[in-house]
């Protein structure tokens, strides 16, 4: 069983609340949900929509064909009716009068009724959040306005619902990190908002300096003083930071960067998704210095990988970039809560106040003084390279790749980051195996082994040029000819991706 329901309306009408109420009730009833948010860069008006997918089996993506549409504005039907299945349902606001701001609650009520969930679950959820007559009345009216079409009986699953940003922020808290510096930029901002709300109860601080250059320099300064520090930004802000990332390479002050990418170049399509920033994550900053780039594909991975990033940065005095995007950051995923055993991040190095310590952006000698000496210049460069070797070894402890699907299949799909969910769903009934690459720097040697075992290789990326494909070719010498690339700012829909994969497999 799988349903895809589109909920659309103007910005400010409260469509997110509909998704939230319905998904929370469904989670409580043991159903898997995935919620995709699509919104333009404006605050009121325009056209926003969510696609809420519901299933009794794990799902991590949306599909293109709709089982139902909840429409709060004129544009919703005009834009999306063509994707509605023949037997699909439509919920419209026409029949409700004078509900004011509670209209969205009525529509949530109508949807709950169509799904065949009992009234009391709806009323309890609405009461928990809005304990007022008008909201409860709206929920009641909505519920009464429809007949049940499905019958979603309670399942035994004990799931939780989280988006990537929230989960990644929990990884920051797990790591007992001290400071988060950021300047507002979509789609990194939800992490800033989430952490800002949690700062006092968890003894850390969220600070917004005047621009991204100040953000990253303040972060290095604070880390030098002994704090565990992270910065967050999107591509444009990251560009501004890169000179200082390079300085990190020289000074070896621990630093974790959360890079949430969106379509570029330029201001691009700011509220949409893209994997176009892998190249800058890997190479942004002048000179040659080691770094780590990790790309989680699910909220749970985001939580764990942030913790690993803190651990590695502190242990090796290295830059860790955790790469995500709007799709992972802002989509809601359902999953079983896992027991988290975060790595302890201990600041063992000497810091100012305890001893005299220096960090010099020039090449420096054993006395921590600036030098232009040829021998020292070479020795320091060699040391930076050598450090990368120990990092590679350390990373063997962590999950740097992950395999899904049919383990013995000769058809290998390769991807990374937020396409993970759509790929898992797309291959669920195919003779295929999916290799998710979590550590993009350093790249695991197992990638080559997996590729050599396969007969057909297909690269899936949410970008124009297949950036992962390039680094794999650099690492293994193998060129992946079959590429499924999407670069319209929208994530893959698993049913359409499945067709594309099938097409590739037929060709070979």
């Amino acid at each position, binding site marked *: 069983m799988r349903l895809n329901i589109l909920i659309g309306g103007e910005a400010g009408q409260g469509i997110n609340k509909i998704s939230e109420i319905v998904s929370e009730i469904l989670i409580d009833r043991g159903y898997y949900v995935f919620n995709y948010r699509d919104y333009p860069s404006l605050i009121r008006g325009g056209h926003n929509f969510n696609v809420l997918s519901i299933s009794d089996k794990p799902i991590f993506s949306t599909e293109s064909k709709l089982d139902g549409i909840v429409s709060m504005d004129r544009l919703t039907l005009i834009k999306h009716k063509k994707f509605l299945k023949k037997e699909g349902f439509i919920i419209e606001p026409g029949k409700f009068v004078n509900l004011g701001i509670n209209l969205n609650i009525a529509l949530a009520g109508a949807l709950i009724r169509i799904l065949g969930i009992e009234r009391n679950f709806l009323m309890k959820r609405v009461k928990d959040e809005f304990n007022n007559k008008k909201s409860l009345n709206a929920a009641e009216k909505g519920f009464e306005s429809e007949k049940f079409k499905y019958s979603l009986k309670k399942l035994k699953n004990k799931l939780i619902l989280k988006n990537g940003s929230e989960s990644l922020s929990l990884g920051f808290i797990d790591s007992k990190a001290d400071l988060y510096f950021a300047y507002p930029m979509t789609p990194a901002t939800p992490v800033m908002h989430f952490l800002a709300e949690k700062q006092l109860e*968890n003894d850390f601080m969220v600070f917004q300096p005047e621009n991204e250059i100040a953000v990253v320099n303040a972060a*290095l*300064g604070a880390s030098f003083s002994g704090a565990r520090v992270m910065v967050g930004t999107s591509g444009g802000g990251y560009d501004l930071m890169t000179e200082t990332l390079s300085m990190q390479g020289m000074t070896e002050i621990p630093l974790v960067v959360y890079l949430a990418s969106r379509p570029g170049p330029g201001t691009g399509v700011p509220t949409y998704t893209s994997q176009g920033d892998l190249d800058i994550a890997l190479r942004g900053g002048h000179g040659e210095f080691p770094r780590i780039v990790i790309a989680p594909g699910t909220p749970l991975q985001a939580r764990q990988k942030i913790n690993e990033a803190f651990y590695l940065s502190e242990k090796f005095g290295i830059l860790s970039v955790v790469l995500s995007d709007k799709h992972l950051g802002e989509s809601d995923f359902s999953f079983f809560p896992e027991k988290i055993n975060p790595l302890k991040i201990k600041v063992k190095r000497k810091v*100012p*106040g305890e001893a005299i310590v220096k960090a010099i952006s020039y090449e420096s000698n054993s006395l921590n*003084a*600036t030098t232009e000496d040829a021998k020292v210049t070479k020795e320091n460069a060699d040391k930076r390279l050598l450090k990368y070797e120990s990092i590679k070894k350390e990373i063997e402890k962590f999950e740097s790749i992950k395999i899904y699907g049919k383990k013995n299949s000769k058809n290998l799909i390769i991807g990374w980051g937020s396409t993970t969910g759509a790929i898992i769903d797309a291959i669920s009934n195919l003779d295929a195996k999916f290799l998710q690459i979590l550590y993009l720097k350093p790249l695991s040697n197992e990638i080559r082994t997996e590729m050599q075992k396969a007969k057909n290789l297909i690269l899936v990326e949410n970008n124009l040029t297949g950036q992962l494909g390039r680094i794999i070719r650099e690492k293994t010498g193998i060129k992946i000819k079959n590429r499924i690339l999407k670069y319209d700012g929208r994530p893959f829909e698993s049913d359409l991706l499945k067709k594309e994969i099938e097409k590739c497999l037929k060709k070979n």
Partner: protein
Amino acid sequence: MSEKKLRVDTANPITWCPGCTNFEILKSVKLAINNSIKKGEKLTNFAMVTGIGCHGKIIDYMNISGICSLHGRPLPTALGMKIGNPNLKVLVFEGDGDVYAEGISHFIHAGKFNSDITLLVHDNQSFSLTTGQSTPTSQKGYKSKAEPLGKFESPLNPIKLALASNATFVARTNARNFEFTAEIIEKAIKHKGFSFVEIIQDCIVFNKDINNRDKKMYKLPNKKRTKLEAMKLAEIYDYNLGKAKIPLGIFYEEKRKTLEELWPQLHNLQKKKINWKQMKK
């Protein structure tokens, strides 16, 4: 000052031009720090940040903790350093190119944030380490290899900008008078909040027209002033050549809650005299 070795000295060879007034600034800073240490401050509690330019070399000549940052970025680095441990005494060294050109946005915001840090600007009105191009404070008409036609516009007045940016301590000194400079630096360190000290200095190789201005300089009387009064005094000297007098001393000082006092997390670290590392979570 006696010539005996100070704890802040290092053995690194000094590579400033012989006769450069940076030697005087270095002396002033050491004297100010030494005096603070005599009054009970711990040497390890000092931390410095420098930018890139002639001034930046000072990090190699002082035995205190610090970061040699990137060009233009010492202020945010120092702000972070202070947020990273609000119990540190943070000194920021920048050149006029560093702070008034590349890092100008940070200068304005430093006044607004009012973090308890001290900014010392080595202002010789030229980019000397890159062979003498003009900076925002170079005088009108200044010719360099990059601008052989001369600089067309009038210079920026950092004292006025600092006042407009709500800096809570604004002063100007003369590098050649190291004892007076040390006295002002000591007061700037003691001031709670963002303190800005503009140190006027000669460049004996490039912008020579600005050298030997001592006769034009005079000391302002020590007194409390309104911002308007301070602004008027700041206008006396516009950084151009000419007969205008150059007032020195503290133009303006006010008490305002610091960033560290306002943020509960930082206030807590200050109260407990610990850094983040020592905080139990």
